[in-house]
């Protein structure tokens, strides 16, 4: 495998996707060959409500530059109510991160259904562009994890 080194900033993006809607939406984006940057790596969770704020902070600690959480549209949750809890939890968490001066654009929640492959790809493109513009995560970094 040839190695390509570039100096341009490539953000690390963690995307938590619920198994029933958003992960399927991501699959659909793939089936339709819709492009989005390889910087996005998806972690499958049963429901968006499985995502603990600790996971999001952990991602930043370990070097993520952006974290996005995708779930079923409100009202469509496979478990009927999970994403409603997610919505409250993440609203408060993001607001707190903003309060601490951490760039709020680094975190996002997006509702993506299993049919919205195009939306998934568009969302990821947009999110990667936003985070790329922000540059490296400095405010929630853990220097111990950055040192190589």
């Amino acid at each position: 495998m040839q190695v390509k080194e570039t100096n341009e900033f490539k953000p690390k993006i963690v995307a938590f996707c619920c198994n029933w809607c958003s992960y399927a939406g991501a699959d659909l984006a793939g089936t339709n060959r819709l492009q989005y940057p390889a910087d996005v790596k998806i972690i499958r969770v049963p429901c968006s409500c499985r995502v603990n704020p600790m996971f999001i902070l952990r991602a930043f600690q370990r070097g993520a530059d952006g974290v996005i959480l995708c779930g079923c549209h409100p009202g469509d949750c496979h478990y009927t109510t999970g994403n409603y809890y997610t919505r409250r939890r993440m609203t408060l968490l993001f607001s707190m991160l903003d309060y601490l001066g951490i760039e709020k654009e680094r975190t996002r929640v997006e509702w993506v259904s299993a049919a919205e492959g195009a939306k998934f790809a568009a969302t990821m493109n947009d999110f990667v562009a936003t985070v790329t513009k922000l540059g490296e995560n400095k405010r929630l970094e853990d220097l111990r994890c950055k040192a190589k």
Partner: protein
Amino acid sequence: MQKIGVFVCHCGTNIAATVDVKAVAEALKGEPGVVFSTDYQYMCSEAGQNLIKNSIKEYGLTGVVVCSCSPRMHEQTFRKAAQSAGINPYMVEIANIREQCSWIHKDIWSATEKAIILGKAAVAKVQLNAPLTAGESPVVKRALVIGGGIAGIQTALDIAEAGFEVDIVEKQPTIGGKMTQIDKTFPTLDCAACILTPKMVDCAQNEKIKIYSYSEVADVKGFVGNFTVKIKKKARYVDEDKCTGCGICTEKCPVKNVPNEFNMGMDNRRAIYIPFAQAVPKVATIDANYCNMLKNGKCGVCSKFCTVGAIDYKQQDTIVEEKYGAIVVATGFNPIKLDDFDEFAYSQSKDVITSLEFERLTNAAGPTSGTLLRPSDGKHPHTIVFVQCVGSRDTSGCGKTYCSKICCMYTAKHAMLTREKYPDTDVYVFYIDVRTPGKNFDEFYRRAVEEYGVHYIKGMVGKVVPRSDGTLMVQASDLLSNEQLHINADLVVLAAAIEPDKSARSLATMLTASMDTNDFFTEAHPKLRPVESPTAGIFLSGVCQGPKDIPETVSQASAAAAKVIGLLAKDKLTCNPCVAQANELMCNGCSSCEKVCPYGAITYSDKEFRMPDRTTAIRRVASVNEAVCQGCGACTVACPSGAMDLKGFSNSQIMAEVDAICK
């Protein structure tokens, strides 16, 4: 430490064209725990599966990572393969390098790099995987149907037909429900009683069916396959086993002024009564609110006349406890109260009636023996106005926001029958929209207009004013001719919206079944699981789920029965092993998890613990019912101490994935 095998699939060129699969297999070799790593053309093929199986045996693998297509595609395939090679199926993780990698990236270098990272994340997760065994829970082969209307009856009959025992709990003294009060059914105009009463009798005679009439569900515990239900049998002061239903008591009872609910209060019954001739069970019931003997101990007439000694004034409410494998909710509906619609003068004039009252006025067993007469003066009405959508499609707060669905059709039926029986009557129907989606429905409605000359007027009635001559001035707008109409009517019939029975809300709480804002039970999936509640083992039948006409109700009732039969036919239920698990030592007993659980899968109990300081203490701790938990994980985040974790998607597993991705 696990011994992990990595299997990278080419998927023909689907993956291999954009991901250097050999490089992926090579890179993952160095990951901790990986003892074997290879690539292959088609992992899902039999040869590919054999490669996995053989490697498991050869290298003594304890965990398997397959880098391939989406787990939604072949996770089951690879799990089964692993299982057949002797390792736990849940020791398999999939790295999705097709849908989420090769298909969306064009650049080989970045796609390969991403595939390696996804592979590493899967390896990191599988390191922490634990063998999971799907639990099994036995199924009590008996079903409970709550509500004995046509929905409940049909469900019960179908379940019994399949050979399972089924109990019906009905709060009224007889089963039959609303359909018993209906005269004829649209669009065929066959007599409701003629088709319903045989089914009621079937219920009574079917040895698999037990009817708890005049009873209510008092408490529900347990979970799918194993519910324990307390049924409160309300005291009817008549021994059901002794009473022959001869009806002598109901003729001799001196209290004659009890409003007869069966006829919508339009005539009276006695304090001891049988709701109607075909009641099932045909047993008398004493209305304690009116019975002189029960109120002040003076009377006892019914007891004197009863030849079998069935009267028992000392009877008490009793609680029966039964076990069920499945519960069907068939609690039905009621027309809404029209108190908030004084523009229609419902409470001012006896001649403004609801459609259900109209049914009774045209029914041979009704207060007028089937002759259409005005309730106020008993005269034959010559002009009748039907008003549709009274309280339906109403966002102003007085009524219901939804369409009640059945009113268009029954109003057409009423109008048609009136014109047929009394051709001298003028019949007006005021409508907003006429909705007739159903087999032969629109034809039926058009017949009312075209053959029977019913005046359908597009527009709403603004007000109804009772006049001194006993007529009703109906002021309405005709939107098509753009004029305001004033009609002198003799009778106004209001198509009141229907709403779920009030008892449904408290029942939903007992069942931990969810409801929408209108108190209709929500279905597990609006399209694909319309007769199941999200709560496992709870099924929905009839209007309790949403407005329906009789044929729809019956088909849903049978569908619910089919689901119940499918459940009861199993001896044991296999549970989803990826369920929440409470660490009792860390649990605070705070109930946060219980509050967010959509399934009521979490319960609390006091347990004795040996504390770190070697004392014993009673602590309140959570436990998860694995048969009920569906594994969403809401509780794991609600729990501040992290005592609640989700098997298969544990905190440490997800964080290991995060770490691997962000490395």
